[in-house]
Each structure stands twice: as structure tokens, then as C-alpha cells.
């Protein structure tokens, strides 16, 4: 996952891109003949210092390689932002970045 987290004085601004095909049920059916091959991110979180700052339950209708832009308070430059996603097939990915 590519993550940029910038300290903006009173908040932190984050832009993150998860590398994922986000294959819908219709696309999977056309591609493999089985809609059950659909696979997309279903849940994604971001946390700093053990506090969740972003949390989304997601569907097949986010774009391929979805981008998440969000803001939060309560952290400083140098703190580590950890983002984790899980997809429909149970694959999971965790990435970290320091707030700049």
C-alpha cells in the first residue's frame, strides 16, 4: 500500500492507495465464469498509537487500486500510521508510514 501522511498543523492529511483489482461479482463471472471468484477489499483501518483514526467497510464498487483520502487529529510528526486491509478471500496487507 502506498501511503502519504502529512502533518498540517492541527490535523494530519492522508492519501493512501491500496493495490487491489477490486474484482466485482459481474466482472468475475465474465472473466472466470464463476461470480464467486469476485474479490475486493472488505474492511480497511488506519491507526496511530493504538487508536483507530480511519475505518471503512467497503464493497466491490470502489475503483481498482482504490484511493482513500482522509484527515484526523491527535497525532504528531514522526508518529507511525499503520494501515491494514482485508479482502473477501481473507488476504490481508499491512503497511506503515511515518507522519511527515
Amino acid at each position, binding site marked *: 500500500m502506498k501511503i502519504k501522511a502529512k502533518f498540517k498543523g492541527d490535523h494530519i492529511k492522508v492519501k493512501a492507495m491500496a493495490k487491489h483489482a477490486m474484482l466485482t461479482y459481474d466482472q468475475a463471472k*465474465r472473466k472466470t465464469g464463476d461470480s464467486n471468484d469476485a474479490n475486493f477489499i472488505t474492511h480497511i483501518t488506519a491507526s496511530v498509537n493504538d487508536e483507530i483514526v*480511519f475505518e471503512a467497510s467497503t464493497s466491490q464498487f470502489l*475503483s*481498482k487500486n482504490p*484511493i482513500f483520502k482522509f484527515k484526523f487529529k491527535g497525532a504528531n510528526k514522526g508518529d507511525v500510521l499503520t494501515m491494514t486491509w482485508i479482502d473477501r478471500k481473507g488476504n490481508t496487507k499491512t503497511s506503515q508510514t511515518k507522519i511527515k
Partner: protein
Amino acid sequence: MQRRKFLNLGALVGLSTLLSSSLHAVNFRQSRPEAWTAHTVDDAIAKLYPNQVIHEGGVELSVPKIATNGGSVPVNVSSSLEAKSIALFQDTNPEAAVIALSIHKNSIIDYDFKLKLKSDGSTPIKITAVLEDLNGALHISSKELIVPSGTCDG
């Protein structure tokens, strides 16, 4: 032996970190699975937020009037209200729910996402944002857009 103790301690710390950070997590796909298979926006809202009063406004939604790429339509949702959660729906893809966000203590309600929207090229597509405030009341706002060419197959 000391190495083994160290590794065990590491595993315990890792597990407790995972547990503490997941304590307040809300996965709407698990708590409200029926909302994600609903085909209409009204049905999806009713299943995600059962028996809740709906007010117009209170949540800002920004979408382009004409989107050039149905596979990646930018949507911004923001609000100054204090909220428990916020969700986005659309009326063109097979199921209506797109994303549901849990709002945490340090969250700022100002999010940008890119949506995949199926289009016939001319019918306006309606995007709906629903915010659940701290009292459980719902605030709703919607915007229409057109995706001229059928660039996405949903």
C-alpha cells in the same frame, strides 16, 4: 531458553496490540450483512440503519456533474456534525451500498474516494450520503451525475 521467552513475550505484545486496536472496530459487513446485498438505496439504508429518523442535509456531498471515467468517479463527503458513522450509496450498480465508515474520536469527517459506476451513458446516477449522528438520527444528502461513456461494467 531466554530467546524462547523473548519470542513468547513478543508474540504476547503483538497479540495485545492487535486486540486493543481492534476493540473499537466496527465492521458493517459483519454486523449488517443484509445491507450489502440490498439492490435499492432505500432498502440498503433501511438495512444498515434500521428504524432511524431521517433528516435532509447536515452532510455535504461533492461529485462531478459529468464524470469522464465510470471506473473511477471522485466523490467527497464531509460534515461538521459529530457522528458515529457515514455511508455512501448509489443507484446504478447491482447493489446499492458502496462504503460505510465508522467515525472515531480523532476522525475528521472529510473523505475522498473513487467509485466504480455502471452507466448506460445518459441516465443520471444518484449518489447518496447518509450520516448517523451521535443521537442515532440520520442526515441525508444526494447528488446526481452523468457518466457519458459506458466505461465501467460495475
